[in-house]
């Protein structure tokens, strides 16, 4: 077990190294001179030179590369050009609202997706299965901004049930916060429901044909108990893993949802950096995302190894 742990963690290090190198190269691919792209055409030669020195662009590439790696090793992800705050601080400022949104979406996805997936698997090829498969495919086909805009038009503008501009200040009573959270969370939650439903259906179909289910049925276990204690219990492992793997998709969709519903969060931070040509903030965000993804991936693999002993030996 220890050997597997060490091996898996050691494998994450070269992966991280390759990803960081890719980010370094990507940022240097900015057409033309980065300093003049950031400052615009009218910038004076002196301010251009000053920015180049600040960003280390006057150094040879290999010196820049080593400095880049060295900073990351010491936990320094750079600072935003426009606000002057460190990238970590910028992220921490908006992280709570993104977490609020994604947790609400995952909750909605599990509450609706699990029972729908189980129902679809139990009535395999029946009309419940058919309808829920079509509905989940429609849910998966919606780009998050498309469903968000349609919901905004129907519920906020036509029906007037929810605020059009969302809660941007973060202040206000709990009820107001929930009211502002409702539509964005529902928007992401519907997509999440579609994912969870599909995975649950597939996992349940796999489990329901196992011998121990047949044995339990033969012993006279009722349908509810069969599903809840026997089938779902074992089917839950792949479901949870997949929910973890869709973390990336969820983040991507939350970016679009935050723009549509005008919520603060990582999405607005990224778009803001994009519009302000804040390349150091973008680079820092990419690095943080890459590290998060590698950590989540490694943890998922380790959890797999813990749950399924067969993985360790492969």
């Amino acid at each position, binding site marked *: 077990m220890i050997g597997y742990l060490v091996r898996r963690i050691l*494998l*994450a290090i*070269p*992966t991280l190294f*390759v*990803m960081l190198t*890719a980010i370094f190269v*990507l*940022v240097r*691919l*900015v*057409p033309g001179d980065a300093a003049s792209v950031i400052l615009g055409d009218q910038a004076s030669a002196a301010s251009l030179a000053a920015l180049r020195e600040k960003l280390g662009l006057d150094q040879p590439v290999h010196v820049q590369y080593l400095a880049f790696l060295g900073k990351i090793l010491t936990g320094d992800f750079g600072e935003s050009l426009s606000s002057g705050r460190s990238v970590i601080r910028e992220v921490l400022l908006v992280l709570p609202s993104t977490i609020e949104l994604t947790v609400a979406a995952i909750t909605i996805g599990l509450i609706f997706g699990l029972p729908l997936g189980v129902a679809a698997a139990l009535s*395999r*090829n029946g009309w419940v299965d058919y309808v829920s498969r*079509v509905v989940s*495919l*429609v849910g*998966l*086909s*919606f*780009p*998050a*901004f*498309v469903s968000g*805009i*349609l919901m*905004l*038009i129907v519920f906020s*503008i036509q029906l007037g049930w929810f605020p*059009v501009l969302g809660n941007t200040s973060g202040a206000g009573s709990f009820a107001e916060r929930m009211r502002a959270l409702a539509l964005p969370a529902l928007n992401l939650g519907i997509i999440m429901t579609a994912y969870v439903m599909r995975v649950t259906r597939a996992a349940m*179909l796999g489990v329901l044909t196992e011998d121990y289910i047949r044995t339990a049925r033969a012993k006279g276990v009722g349908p509810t108990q069969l599903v809840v204690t026997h089938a779902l219990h074992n089917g839950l492992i792949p479901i949870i893993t997949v929910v973890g*793997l869709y*973390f*990336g*998709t969820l*983040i*991507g*969709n939350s*970016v*679009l949802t935050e*723009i*549509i519903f005008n919520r603060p969060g990582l999405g607005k931070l*990224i*778009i803001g950096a*994009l519009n302000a040509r804040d*390349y150091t903030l*973008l680079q820092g965000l*990419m690095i943080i*995302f*890459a590290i998060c*993804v*590698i950590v*989540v*991936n490694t943890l998922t693999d380790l959890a797999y190894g813990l749950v399924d002993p067969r993985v360790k030996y492969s």
Partner: protein
Amino acid sequence: MSAADTPVAIQPGGLWLAFTQNRLAWVGLVLLALIVFIALFAPWLAPHDPLEQNIVARLEPPSAEFWLGTDSYGRDVLSRLIYGARISLFVGFVAILIAMLVGTAIGVLAGYIGGVFDQLVMGVLDVLLAFPTLLLGLMIAAMLGASLENLIIAIAVTEVAPFARVARAPTITLRQRDFVEASRSYGCGPFRIMTRHILPNMISDVVVMSSLWLASAIRTEASLSFIGLGVPPPAPTWGAMIREGFENILDAWWLAVFPSLAILVTVLALNLLGDALRDASDPRSRSR
């Protein structure tokens, strides 16, 4: 029967199975054919010039003259929608073609060479797979600058990893098969084995998945255009049209609604088709 003996590629009849077993596949195919038809014959189908501005007829609701209304420059929404199909499909197809070529090559190489090279390549691809597609495309498009070529590159990069994964798995199985071993003993080089013996036996797996990933590519294209990183204006792209509709959402609902439906129908058609093809190519799900 060991894993090495199971056929990895789907049989010629397998594709047909998708259409005999799954009525939804027909729905997807017909919708897709319709969209391709609209894109191909856009100049004959569009009632107006998609770029022609008409200041007098700004933000007009749907009418007999302008079936789907006009935008804030007085341009016909229906005509822009019809021409927009060309951009979405073109960007999607080309990006997926590039991703398929590059991804399949990486997957076959990693699977055939194996060892540390395979582990490192797959480690990086796993991270790319888990990285939010939209953010990856967004970063690349932002760094390279907004243009048609850069948009295609950005989307292609986001779809390389899934192709490599699908190409790698059958390569590992095929590498150990007797006919590959036989050709190796005849003196075949690795390049010839990979292109002549392994590739033809697994390419159908890759092609089957490409329709699902084309859906994902078109979704990414729309999202990037919506953010402002797509084909630059005044080109009529669905994502940019929705952006304009979003900015005028209080007084002109038709601007956002019709391009939204166009994206939805296109992505849904590809997903319906791709789902059916994948089910037909996977013997395990066929019995279900």
